[in-house]
């Protein structure tokens, strides 16, 4: 029974990893941008959730739509200010330049957060924080159930958007061949702008969940790390496999905690990451990129 309990915690963490990684995978799959400031943007969103709760008492789950709007606007501004200039480059230069730019952004966001909110750790504590549902002796935290629910909603909504709407199809077309997309009458510049903003706003649910765990200016990079590991595990650009990859990583971590203890949690993920890079660099999951 014990190992099942660990597995449940692993799946909950995995669902959150999946939500964190989606935006990274989107930006990389569509534009070739590797935005390593993603984790810091998520932390900014989490601070948003924290202050919405502290000042107006908005529940973190209900603050998600507001966070989406805020992150969307931040995404638009960032894209127009620093990322739109990279489009004229070949894909490999886009990768390198976006890595440098987002590394710089990372430092800016981190120090800004320290100045504004100090380096203290904070968290939102709601009336249901720490409460669990007890099913056949298994403890299911309400926040954890909400996390898994959110992850499913986000993945399904994104999938429907990309496959059923005209604009979603235009995004996929642009990811596959941006030059040919122009010949379809697609405004590629605008498609990139919206895609980038989408890759940021899609992290809003993750930000809300993280605000109920722990936030501090320094933890953005940890979340980016998880995101990068998942992008590799899932196979680059393969957004349909991000959530399965997240759940997989969460389970591996949980099992390693069960077997060798909590101090090595982070290690397990990195070991898997290195093994995948060595033996299956195209990703663990079958099927072609969804983009």
């Amino acid at each position, binding site marked *: 029974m014990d190992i099942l309990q660990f597995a449940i915690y692993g799946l909950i963490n995995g669902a959150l990893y999946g939500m964190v990684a989606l935006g990274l995978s989107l930006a990389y799959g569509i534009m070739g941008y590797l935005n390593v400031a993603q984790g810091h943007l998520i932390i900014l969103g989490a601070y948003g959730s924290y202050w919405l709760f502290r000042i107006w008492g908005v529940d973190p789950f209900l603050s998600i739509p507001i966070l989406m709007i805020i992150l969307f606007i931040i995404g638009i501004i960032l894209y127009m200010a620093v990322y739109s200039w990279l489009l004229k480059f070949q894909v490999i230069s886009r990768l390198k330049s976006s890595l440098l730019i987002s590394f710089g952004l990372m430092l800016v966001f981190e120090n800004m957060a320290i100045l504004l909110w100090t380096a203290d750790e904070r968290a939102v504590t709601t009336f249901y924080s720490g409460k669990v549902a007890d099913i056949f002796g298994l403890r299911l935290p309400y926040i954890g159930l909400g996390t898994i629910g959110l992850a499913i909603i986000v993945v399904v909504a994104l999938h429907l958007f990309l496959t059923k709407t*005209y604009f979603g*199809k235009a995004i*996929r077309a642009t990811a*596959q061949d941006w030059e040919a*997309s*122009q*010949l379809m*009458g697609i405004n590629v*510049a605008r498609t990139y702008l919206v895609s980038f903003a989408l890759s940021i706003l899609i992290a809003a649910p993750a930000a809300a969940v993280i605000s109920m765990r722990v936030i501090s200016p320094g933890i953005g990079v940890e979340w980016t790390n998880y995101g990068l590991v998942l992008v590799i595990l899932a196979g680059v650009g393969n957004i349909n496999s991000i959530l399965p990859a997240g759940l997989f990583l969460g389970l591996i971590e949980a099992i390693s905690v069960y077997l060798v203890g909590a101090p090595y949690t982070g290690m397990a993920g990195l070991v898997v990451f290195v093994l995948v890079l060595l033996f299956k660099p195209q990703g663990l999951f079958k099927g072609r*990129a969804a983009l």
Partner: protein
Amino acid sequence: MLKIDEIDVYYGDLQALWGVSLAVKDGEMVALVGSNGAGKSTLLKTVSGLLRPRRGSISYQGIRIDQQDAHKIVEAGISMVPEGRRLFPDMSVLENLELGAYLPQARQAQQKTLRWIYDIFPILRERETQAARTLSGGEQQMLAIARALMSQPRILLLDEITLGLSPLIVDNIFEVIKQVNKLNHIAIFLVEQNVVLALELSDTAYIIENGRIIGQGEAKALLESQEVKDAYLGIAPASGETD
């Protein structure tokens, strides 16, 4: 009418087109022939907005289009089948066609256009749900043409559509092109290495060499001219290479 007037086009510092002028009248079929690297594709890319001329002008129905973005040029009624087809490989045949009808006006008429497309290329209906990359070369070329037609263009630009296809499929495809031109009055501007085929089909033709137009006239007359015979017919294969 599409009017290209004295354009110079560069790739970086390298000049690819030198003072090229030509015209495609409404409903006409015009061929641009020349050897590999003569500047044929460069010209089509410039018309469709993927490249910009450094000098000269391009206008369509009297309106300058040479500084417009590629997606605006599709809106104006000029649609291109690019060299190498450039399909969206991981998307289905139907999705490729839907993207061809991305612009609002075309989207409204999508169902009607689609029925017409399936009439002229019945194989695409059968392949509707398959990913574009799983089609044969000939089917892919048909899809590329169909996708370009979905935008309801007034002019269709065709860049080397016979390349790598078997003679049978080339005949099949050009039957459709002729039909589209004659019945639907869509002007065709085609670029070909297959000189004989292009000249036989077209009304007017231009010959391009080293980035300059070196001959023009009625296509049939050019086909008979000693100059063309000497320069191209000796080496031009009868109709493309095999698939």
